[in-house]
Every structure is written in C-alpha cells, then in structure tokens.
C-alpha cells in the first residue's frame, strides 16, 4: 500500500496548486479518492466522523443492482436463442448477453462520466459519485436492441438537462436515469416499443420478435406466461428489469444496509396492489382484468419501485412524505398502464410524475409541522394576553 501511495503522490504533483495541470485537479482527485480515502481531517463541527461516505453508499446501490444485471445478461442470450431455435448452453446465453450489454454499459459510463468530469473541472468541484449508479441504471432499463448512439444521446440529455442544469448530484428534480429513458421513449418511439426491440437481434432478423406482456395486453392479446415465469423473469423486456426475483435480492440489500427506503418500496407495492384490485373488480378490458398480483410482476414495476423510486434526491425527503410518495407512484403506475395503453411504461411515467410532485408533498408535511408550532405559540399568546 505504501508503495502505491508513493507512486500516487508523485503523479499528484503536477495537479497541485501551481502545477502545470492544476486545472485538471478535480479529475485527478476523482481517481485518487477511488484508490484512497483522503487524509482530510475534520476542521469544523464534529471532530470525529462516521466511516460512511457517499462513495460507499453509491457502491452499495451498485452491488444491489448486480443480481438483476447478471440475470439480465443471461436472459438476453436466453431470449435470443429460444427465438432463433438454436441449441444453446448456459454459457452461450451469458456470452451473447454480455456481448450485447457490456458495450451499452461502456457507452453509458464513457459519455456520462466525460460530461461529469468536464463539469467538475469547469466548476472546480469534486466529481460526484451519483453517476456511478445512474450510468449503470441507464443501460439496464433500455431495450436490448437500442443503437448505441441513441443510448449516448439519451445519456447526454439526462446528464445535461436533468442533472447538471440543476446543479449536479443532489440538486436534480427528476431521476436522471428515468429521464434518459423518457427521452429515448419520446424521441425514438420505434426503438422503444412494439415487438421488434425487446429480443436481441429482433431489429435485424425478421424471424425474431417478442412482445412485452404489457404490450400484448394493451393490444388486447393473450398472455402465455405463467406468474412463475413473470416472477423469475424469463420473458422479453428491458435489459435487467424482467426478473422480480433478482430485483428483490437487490431490494433486500438496499433495505438491510439502510441505503434504500423500505417505506417507499412497501407503500409503492400497497398503492399498486390497491388500484390493481379495484381494476380487477371493474374488469372492463384485458388490462383491467389482468390479475393485480401479476401487475406487480410484469414490466418495470419491481425494478422501478426498488431502484428508481427510492432515489433519495428525487423522492420525497420527509418520512411521512415518503409513504405518500411511494403510494402514489404505485397508484399512478397502474392507472397509466390501464388507462393509457399507448404508454405501457406506467412505472417510468409514474415515478417521473411523482418526482415533480415530491417537493409539494414535502411542502405540506413540513407545513403541518410549522402550523403545529405556530398554534403552540398562538395558544401561549392568548394565555398571556
């Protein structure tokens, strides 16, 4: 360790004040702090500090994403091979998936981090860790056959407009990863819906096609998958969102480490279940009569509620607010799915919608605290007057 530290110290010299590359210090700092927690000591406030920092928190989210990502890689290959009818082994499927997905992840990180670094250098602030998570989330929620240049443009849009325009990590109103998806969804609709995008190579090979379950339902089609299939995730869909099982493993990691808000997850499931049951009772079309518990299993609901709705920056920030926010995400997700079959992406739109309303929810929660205090003051005034 000492040897590496010495090498880093030598490399660091030109980036320090007065050095030739002083301007690029934030970029160097990002790499240095990846390798070493810095030697900064406390100067104001508490003299001792908790071992946790934002890097550790963000890495925990990435660890929680890995089960779903791994399954997504396998499922990409699996869907491709069962459609083509070729013989395949587990390894073949994984290799095919990796071949398709790793370039997406690479593009997402390269483009997004380039912008983050540029802003950090320009504004002379340290590179924030937020994009480590966003950069992995974006490819995980896109259709597998999306051209890489579209992915790159979506990333640029998300990082510039949804995040940096508001001041960077911690200041954004909308979840950046979902903004990237929403951008792609409205800018390139033919690549984001239909039956030719969800299975690997479907855009190139005529014989391959595959609808998502929600797509089929919206077209009043039949669903041939069992609830077990939907839960385990061997179905067409965005890269890593299909398996509820592996998403739940991630949810467990988030909840046990305290990084993700269990309140949002639970209340989201409650909200979606409630609306699902109500629609089941109504049952006017195939989307309405689709069993409420299956609504929780299909599409991006599980992935969205676990990894997107719990984004602490864009979600409600008060405890009470989190319950309301999560619940409404669940409610709107099913509402949008059922009432607007053109947008099967209910959860994406529901979360973005609630992102916008989260500050309002918080406002009313905080306001009730304020009025409670005011009432206490008024009561005293009356007594003494």
């Amino acid at each position: 360790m000492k040897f590496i530290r010495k090498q880093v110290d030598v490399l660091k010299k030109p980036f320090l004040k007065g050095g030739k590359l002083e301007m690029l210090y934030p970029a160097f700092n990002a790499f240095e702090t990846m390798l070493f927690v810095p030697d900064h000591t406390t100067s104001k406030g508490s003299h001792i500090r908790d071992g946790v920092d934002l890097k550790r928190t963000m890495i925990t989210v990435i660890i929680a994403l890995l089960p779903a990502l791994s399954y997504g890689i396998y499922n990409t290959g699996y869907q491709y091979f069962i459609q083509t009818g070729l013989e395949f082994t587990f390894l073949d499927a994984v290799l095919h998936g990796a071949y398709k997905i790793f370039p997406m992840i690479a593009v997402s990180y390269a483009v997004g981090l380039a912008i983050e670094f540029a802003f950090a250098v320009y504004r002379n602030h340290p590179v924030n860790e937020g994009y480590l998570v966003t950069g992995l989330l974006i490819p995980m929620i896109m259709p597998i056959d999306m051209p890489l240049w579209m992915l790159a443009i979506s990333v640029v849009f998300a990082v510039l407009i949804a995040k940096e325009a508001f001041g960077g990590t911690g200041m954004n109103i909308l979840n950046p990863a979902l903004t990237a998806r929403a951008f792609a969804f409205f800018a390139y609709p033919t690549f984001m819906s239909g039956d030719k995008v969800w299975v690997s190579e479907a855009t190139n090979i005529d014989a391959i096609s595959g609808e998502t379950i929600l797509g089929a339902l919206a077209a009043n089609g039949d669903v041939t998958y069992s609830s077990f299939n939907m839960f385990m995730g061997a179905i067409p869909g965005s890269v890593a969102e299909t398996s509820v099982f592996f998403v739940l493993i991630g949810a467990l990691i988030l909840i046990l480490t305290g990084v993700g808000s269990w309140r949002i997850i639970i209340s989201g499931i409650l909200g979606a279940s409630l609306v699902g049951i109500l629609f089941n009772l109504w049952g006017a079309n195939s989307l309405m009569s689709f069993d409420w518990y299956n609504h929780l299993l299909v599409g991006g609901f599980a992935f969205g509620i676990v990894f997107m709705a719990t984004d602490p920056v864009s979600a409600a920030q008060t405890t009470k607010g989190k319950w309301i926010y999560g619940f409404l995400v669940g409610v709107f997700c099913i509402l949008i799915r059922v009432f607007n079959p053109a947008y099967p992406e209910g959860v994406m739109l529901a979360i973005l919608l609630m992102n916008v309303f989260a500050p309002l929810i918080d406002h009313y929660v905080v306001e009730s605290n304020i009025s409670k205090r005011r009432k206490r003051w008024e009561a005293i005034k009356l007594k003494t007057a």
Partner: protein
Amino acid sequence: MSTDISIKNGANLNLKGLASKELEVAKKSLTYAINPDDFFSLVPRMLVKEGDKVSKGQPIFHDKNDETILIVSPVSGKVKEIRRGAKRKILYVIIKAEGDDVIKFDIPELQKITKEQIIKLLSDSGSLAYIKQRPYNIIAKPSRLPKSIFVSTHSTAPYDVDYDFLLSNRLDDLQTGIDIMSAIIDKPINFSVTHKKDSSFKNLNNVKIFNIKGAHPSGNESFQINKIDPLNFGETIWVIKPEDLSNIGAFFSSGIFSSSRTVAISGDSLKSPKYYSTCIGASISSLINSDEINDIKNYRFINGDPLSGSKVEYSEFLGFYNNSLSVIEEGNNYRMLGWLPFMYNSIPSFSKTSLSWLLGGAKKVNTNLNGEERAIVVTGEMEKYFPMDIFPMQLIKACMRGDIEKMESLGIYEVVPEDFGLVDFSCTSKIETQEIIKSGIEIMLKEVG
C-alpha cells in the same frame, strides 16, 4: 416527585479511553486564561490592561452590547498578556496567578433575599456567565427573566462526565444554587437525571425531577425542553450546567466568585484518563503531562466532547464551560479502498454498510473525515439522530439560505449548534451542520434579537 421522559432515536458512541472515576487535584497552573469565543455572540470590551493586577472575581471585560454582562477573573494575579489574532480579535486574556486577593460581596440572609437582589448579585459577581439563555445559547440577560430553568445531569455525549461522581462532595453548594435559582422563577427548577440510575440528586429540594430515558443526544437540554416545556416565540428559558449551578451556590454561600472546575480528561492514548479538580481557564499542560502521551503533536485536544467541543492547542487553556477535555489522535492518513462497504469496520459507523454495529465494545477514533464533503443526497438520516419535532434537514437548508421566516417557523429558537453533533457525525455527505446552525442563529440574533 419525578416524571419519566422517554426520548427515542439517537445513539450512544462508546469510545475507548473514558476517564475513570478517580479524582485528583491538578497541579497548580502558572497561568489562567479566558477566551471570549467561549461566550457566543459576546463582543469583549476590555476593562483591564496588560500588567494590571487583578483579584479573583474582578471584571476583566464586559459585553460591548450589554455592559451588565461581566466576565471576571477566575484567579488572583496579574494580566500577563492580551493575546490578539487577525483584525486584533482577542484570543485570550492570560492571567499569571499570584497572591490571593478576592472580591467579596455582602450576601443578604438567603431566606430573605429578594429576586432583584439575586439578579444584581449574579450580574455584578460575573456568576451570570454561568447561565445560558435559550433561544440563542447566549449569556442570560438580567432584563429577560425565564419561564423555567433547566439543569441536566443526564449526560450522553461521548466522553461526557458522570455528574453524580463529579458533584458528590458539592451537593450543599448545588442545593444553594437550586434554591437561589428557583427563587427567581418562584417555582422549582427542572432537573433531569438518568432513568433508573441510583442518584443522590433525587433527594434535592426545590426541583422537579425528570428521569430521562434515551441515548445521545437526549442529554442535551434542547431535547428535554422540547418534551417538557417547549420554548415558544418570545419566551426565554435558562439552562445551567450542574457544576456551574454549584458555583453559583458557592458564591451565594461565601460572597466570592467560584471558579471551580472538575474536568474529566478522556482519550485512548492517555495512560491514566481520570477526573481532575482545577479552575476555569487552567492551562492544558497543568492537566496533562507532556509525557502522558507519546508524540503529543499528533493529537488533538478538545475542550468538550468530540462531537461538539472546540479544538485547542496543548499550549492553550481549558474553556469556560466544559467539564470534559478530550484527546483524540489526528487522522491524517490515507486508507486504501476505504470506501468499500464492510471495509475498516473498526471505525465507528451507524450505517449498516459497515459491520461496526456488530463489533461491540468501546471504539478507537481519530479525526479523519472518512470521505469528502458532498451535496446532501441521503435523506431521512438526520432525523434518526435528532429526536425532536423539528425537521433538521429543512432547518439546515433554511439556515444556508439565511431565510429568517423559515428558520423561525422551522424551530431555530429551540436548537443550539451542539444538538447537531450526532447529525454532523453521521452525515454521509459530511455536511458541517453545527456551523450552519450557528450561522443561522447569528442571523436570527442580529435580525430578531
């Protein structure tokens, strides 16, 4: 009569090197010093010059904005130096101890003493400095009498003292102090003790005992006030530290300003951490021998507890108010890949991304920031360590904006910076919340007063 109060949320930090319950008389300090920074918002106007002889209890400076607020010399001697920093700001008034001249007041019979006489004596003797006023945590103003008075012996901060031990032989002074203070408000003062702890304080008179159950920061008076007698706009409450109340009592018994201070010196590097009895403003070197710690330069000395105390050099002096002096290793070292979850579990952490919570026992700490400052990202974290019906994060943001109306309505009057010690500690984004609250209170003091 006693009432049980339970304060949920919060957490205790168990640190290695807590002072053991042995009391030793500290060796005599050659110099004593008063740091005007110990008195929040006080602007000192000197009443003595370098070279002047001062008696114990003689005023050395008063507040420019309120001349009734006097700070007096803790010992008899000669003003050795008025140490100034940038912009001629007074850092220390250093007094070389010599002789034993004292200023003595005539105290009327305590049974017949009037409220006005008490206030006048408190103010003239400098004992008023022992009383803090809420809101703002400034020295109490004789012109604004409180609706109630709070004393907390429920100490929860890391390295905090055990007041039962500390005051075991000053109970008489404490009782006198209590009688005097309750005479001011014509009712018993609120006195909190630790729940289910066998305490001699329960036998005191003129007090309303509250048994406080809860982890840090439930020992801070703000949280108790919030539960027992919340502070409203326009009201004042006085808060007195237990030993300071004994000093007030001692003054009313003897007529001489009492500057006794028992201080617990804690730190895992100390050979024998224990309690010492000395005087306010004693030099740190009179309390800790330089051979007590190897490599003394690599340690930080803190007047107060590690969460909310203030840094001093080894060559400097004990503060006016603190009963604890903490010694902590400087953490200016790198940790390779230290940000990975479940790495370096020996560093105390409330987060479940570390196994620290599984490893019981007292922890060793240093002053490393354990990361870098970031924008606030994680939410719901501050509330866990702030057991009051106030939204800490929203209040902090209002302070950052300097939004007076919002600060007021979110409860700035009910808090003091040290209430945010644990919030500071646990913050993932390493936000300096105590500094932010302090700046917010400064704005309120200036604009609202």
